[in-house]
């Protein structure tokens, strides 16, 4: 019934089956095809990220993997169990933090955790111990008796994190776990996630909008409009762009595009009001462009490619087109 903490990464047999395997999974809502036949596998002990803009289908995929939504097509296994035919085994093996909070706000943190322990059949003595450990780990032990409605958004999030681990799941699903957390809490949360992986070999499946979080994942799937359009380690994805990214803002982007093609043999992409060039060695090219380009340059920047660039390169759109930019995420990106 209960799974003991699993062995650490190194001790595990090498040819262990995938923690999550998904084949051609799809889901439609009426006419809208929210998830269009995605396939991927997540290895045991891996931190796997789902990156994509609003409405990409990330939460819908999570709902199917966590048995809350029946797929329209395809199949998926989590911890070796089919998400449709073996719902209960899947449910016992997973922990989840939903995108929207799912706490009973009238009750205290302790009450919320105890209910969870009873629902998952954790024996009383062990539950008491884990509840204390969990609350201390997320720094809420001192406020355990207060009704959750008095908690701040970040505290609620941390409580949910502690709750999702009470029954020692094998796979943890996190749907935007750090949204609304201040930077300090985000780092603490990440620290905790990494530790869980190291100590228990927990497999983590998370979605995020934050580039820096996506970078911390072992592998990420980039999702857009219901499809997985790229899947690899963050480093490999960025390397696929071929080196550096130069962004140019010119007086006439159309003319500049043509000029770059004809005189420099470079294929630039127009994203919003900027031209983007993916080049091997930007440091060498940039001075030449500044000297020789006929169209007047208004602004220029040279960057290592980010996952955002990968997204732009694949879709021609900015990741955050759809919503207002999060100033904190911008700041973090620049800080790198």
């Amino acid at each position, binding site marked *: 019934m209960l799974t003991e903490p699993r062995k650490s990464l190194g001790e595990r047999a090498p040819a262990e089956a995938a923690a999550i395997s998904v084949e051609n999974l799809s889901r439609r809502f009426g006419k809208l095809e929210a998830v269009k036949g995605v396939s991927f596998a997540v290895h045991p002990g891996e931190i796997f990220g789902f990156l994509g803009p609003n409405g990409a289908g990330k939460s819908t995929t999570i709902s199917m993997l966590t048995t809350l939504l029946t797929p329209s097509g395809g199949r998926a296994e989590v911890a070796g169990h089919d998400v449709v035919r073996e719902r209960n085994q899947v449910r016992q093996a997973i922990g989840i933090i939903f995108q*929207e909070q799912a706490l009973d706000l009238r009750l205290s943190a302790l009450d919320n955790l105890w209910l969870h322990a009873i629902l998952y059949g954790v024996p009383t003595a062990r539950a008491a111990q884990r509840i204390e450990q969990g609350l201390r780990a997320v720094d809420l032990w001192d406020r355990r008796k207060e009704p959750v409605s008095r908690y701040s958004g970040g505290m609620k999030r941390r409580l949910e994190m502690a709750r999702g681990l009470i029954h020692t799941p094998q796979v943890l699903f996190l749907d935007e776990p750090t949204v609304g957390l201040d930077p300090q809490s985000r780092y603490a949360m990440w620290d905790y996630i990494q530790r869980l992986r190291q100590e228990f070999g927990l497999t983590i499946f998370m979605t995020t909008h934050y580039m820096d979080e996506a970078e911390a994942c072992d592998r990420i799937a980039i999702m857009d409009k219901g499809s997985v359009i790229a899947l690899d380690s963050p480093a490999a994805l960025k390397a696929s762009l071929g080196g550096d990214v130069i962004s140019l803002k010119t007086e006439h982007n159309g003319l500049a595009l043509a000029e770059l093609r004809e005189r420099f043999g470079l294929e630039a992409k127009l994203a919003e009001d900027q031209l983007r060039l993916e080049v091997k060695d930007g440091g060498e090219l940039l001075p030449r462009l500044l000297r020789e380009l006929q169209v007047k340059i208004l602004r220029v920047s040279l960057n290592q490619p980010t996952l955002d660039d990968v997204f732009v390169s694949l879709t021609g759109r900015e990741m955050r087109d759809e919503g207002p930019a999060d100033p904190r995420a911008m700041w973090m990106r620049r800080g790198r």
Partner: protein
Amino acid sequence: MSEARAIYAIWLRDIKRLWLDRARILIGLLQPALYLFVLGSGLGSVTRIAGGKGDYIQFIFPGVIGLTVLFTAVFSAVSIVFDREFGFLKEVLVAPVSRRAIAIGKSLSGSTQATVQGILILIFAPLAGVHFGFGELLGLIVIMALTGFAMTSFGVLFAARFRSTEAFPIVINGILLPLFFLSGALYPVTNLPVWLTPFVHIDPLTYGIDAMRGAALPKGLEVGPGVFVPAHVYPIWLSVAVIVAFGLVMVWLAVWQFSRAE
């Protein structure tokens, strides 16, 4: 085994919330008190004009308990819709527990809440001129619990369908009030107009209230000096059988409806 713990968890959560909302329990006494003392005294004068001697407040006292049980039970079931809207339902649905256990846990917690609220109404018994012994008290509690269970299950059946709390007024005006007004809570179910009689007799609440009336007024109602008639119409065993049967059908339907959503 795992079913039992899931039922317990669902029940426990509602009872913890009930305890936290103690103040609401007291506010919940207001409406019954209005029915009992304002409506009861007001309409009591009508029955006296008509020549009756029986005290109307005594007569509707069990009806007001029925009202309380009905509303408490169904409202507790409707909390499922609130849980859906405020997110907590997902925590329950993603847990390794059957939908059956969730529905049954909900019905039991509604029954408990309705019984607690119903017992509190008994505080008004002396004021309403209703006197009964310990045995009758126990009987009343059992009937409250059974009626509460049936009505909560009935509510769960609906709550499983509703996605938003906007449907709330429909539930109250379209279902609860008809159930209450047809139940014989406020009038005797004998000698009714022909068109009304069948509706009254298919209303399950009629049987719950009739049984409560039997238990709360063991001597019957005094219609003349020293002349008593039974306060209730059906044999108590029949009423109890109807409520239990209705409860079982409703909980079965609620479980079915709740599981279907998967």
